[in-house]
């Protein structure tokens, strides 16, 4: 878990300044997951300005990033977050299960199942697509190597796994045995299982391992932007999954700290046209595209998206234990 340095420095400087006059000064902590660094850096600045203009109060948003599961564990173990913005509903569910920080129906409190932005899983292939990878069935062809992080340690990888399952289930007319065989075959084509999404990107991009990287759309775009489109290209499969990274307020923490008002406003601002535009700019699909620059929206290709609440998966509360728990389907793939 790391605090991004500029905001930490800012928080420190601000606390020094605020020591003098009795200036209204609040600090909130947003505990988030790995690939949202760029998004929240930009959003936090926008929110701080908005809050100052709106109420005359200065608010400092501190930011913490790490693997989604590890971040949830930190909150359970007592990290005093005001809001969590994680990769998986299951991670926030775990917080609600283990603590009284927020009610169990937290998902109903904000629009779109508390997911202000969404994403999906796409393929990143090497420039020119030398192995001609077009869809999921190409991934299990002889000699194709697929890079994905370990679904057990990476929230993003669970979406990869479920996207493959969704495609296979449609392909084989809902036959779950065949879907499972396909996913098992897919993981036999994985030579390296990194622990996190950024690790996998490094393995694929820097180490030159593998023919295709299964990545969140926003990570894939970011890789293109950083490394130049002459090296990689994005392939969008026919079917993928609607990844809904949720956000939630931690009631007990904000009440203890007296930050409820600002923390609620923070989450609501994510749903505002400004928040939605920032999300789109950072390659997350906005929930409400009405106020977003159409040029940013044009980058998101059309794709059939299966949601986690589809009867196929039955929501995280079912998918999590049956696929990813100890001894679940993913573990069975690797039993010899």
């Amino acid at each position, binding site marked *: 878990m790391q605090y991004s340095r500029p905001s930490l420095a800012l928080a420190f400087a601000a606390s020094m300044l605020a020591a003098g006059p009795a200036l209204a000064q609040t600090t909130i902590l947003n505990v988030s997951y790995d690939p949202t660094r760029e998004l929240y850096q930009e959003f936090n600045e926008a929110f701080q300005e908005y809050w100052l203009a709106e109420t005359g109060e200065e608010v400092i948003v501190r930011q913490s990033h790490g*693997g989604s*599961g*590890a971040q*949830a*564990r930190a909150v*359970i173990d007592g990290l005093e977050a005001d809001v969590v913005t994680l990769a998986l509903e299951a991670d926030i569910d*775990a917080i609600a299960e*283990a603590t009284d920080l927020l009610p169990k129906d937290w998902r109903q409190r904000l629009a779109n199942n508390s997911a202000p932005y969404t994403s999906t899983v796409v393929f990143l292939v090497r420039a020119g697509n030398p192995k001609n990878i077009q869809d999921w069935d190409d991934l299990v062809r002889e000699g194709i190597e697929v890079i994905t992080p*370990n679904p*057990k*340690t990476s929230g993003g990888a669970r979406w990869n796994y479920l996207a493959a399952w969704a495609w296979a289930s449609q392909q084989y007319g809902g036959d779950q045995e065949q879907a499972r065989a396909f996913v098992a075959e897919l993981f036999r084509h*994985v*030579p*390296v*299982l*990194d*622990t996190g999404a950024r*690790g996998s990107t490094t393995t694929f991009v*820097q*180490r*030159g*391992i593998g023919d295709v990287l299964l990545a969140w759309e926003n990570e894939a775009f970011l890789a293109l932007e950083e490394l130049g489109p002459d090296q990689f290209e994005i392939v969008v499969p026919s079917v993928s999954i609607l990844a809904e990274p949720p956000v939630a307020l931690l009631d007990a923490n904000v009440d203890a700290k007296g930050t409820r008002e600002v923390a609620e406003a923070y989450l609501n601002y994510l749903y505002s046209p400004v928040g939605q535009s920032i999300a789109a700019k950072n390659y997350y699909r906005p929930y409400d595209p009405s106020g977003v620059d159409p040029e940013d929206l044009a980058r998101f290709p059309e794709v059939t998206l299966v949601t986690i609440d589809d009867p196929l998966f039955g929501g995280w509360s079912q998918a999590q234990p049956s696929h*990813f*728990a*100890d001894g679940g389907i993913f*573990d069975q793939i*690797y*039993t*010899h």
Partner: protein
Amino acid sequence: MADVAVIGRPQPARRRLKQPSVIPGFGLTLGFAVTYLCLIVLIPLGALVAWSAGLGWDEFWRLASDPRTVSALKVSFVTALIAASINAVFGLLLAWVLVRYRFPGRRLLDAFIDLPFALPTAVAGISLTALYAPNGWVGQYLSQLGIKVAYTPIGIVVALTFISLPFVVRTVQPVIEEIDRELEEAAATLGARRWQTIIRIILPMLLPPLLTGYALALARAIGEYGSVIFIAGNIPHVSEIAPLLIRIRLEEFSYAGASAIATVMLAISFAMLLVINLLQAWSRKRFGHGA
């Protein structure tokens, strides 16, 4: 009573806890040492065992004997044993060269030995991976020969050898410095051949520190996570190490499962270290060297 029988004799049988010493403060320092050891070592380890005890024996055994856990433990212990053995041979050689010969750059080379101590292990892992990946400086030539290092168990051994090297060198080095050269000369004048001097004079003296170094290197390598995770590939049953499996259990929010694997690792490590210590005690007695 028994007291009568020993009158008039010194009392070697009755051990006194408090030894007379020039420097006072035995009670205070012993108390402090025990408290310190408890706080730093025993309480965390006790908590670990207590957590896994909460599982119940059946559940503990199921987790510990799960094929994947067994594979991961095997990978961890086998690679650590290989790495420690490599270092026992080459670390000894390195220590010998550094002590016995004078050459330009010796002090610099000596300072390099400690670098694996100082380097954050993640940095070591990432640089080794970059080096040994099929497109890396070293990896590209090895891959032409059909040898894959990164993302295989060989990669794990490379990383563990790197991080555990200083333990062997630094434990053997001071003992080599202490060896009296006259012993070798005496052996030579008495007609010993070179290999006899090495095997019968030098090695017996070096065996106890070498075993200590070996044990330290082994212990360090077994628990290593940071550097291995980048180079291993982490494929279950092939290159998945036990510490990673512990982390996976934690990601499942299963503290008990994680502590079960940790307890098994702890028990095996403790048994191995105990054997090594016994061997060391035996070699001290057998060859009559050491402190």
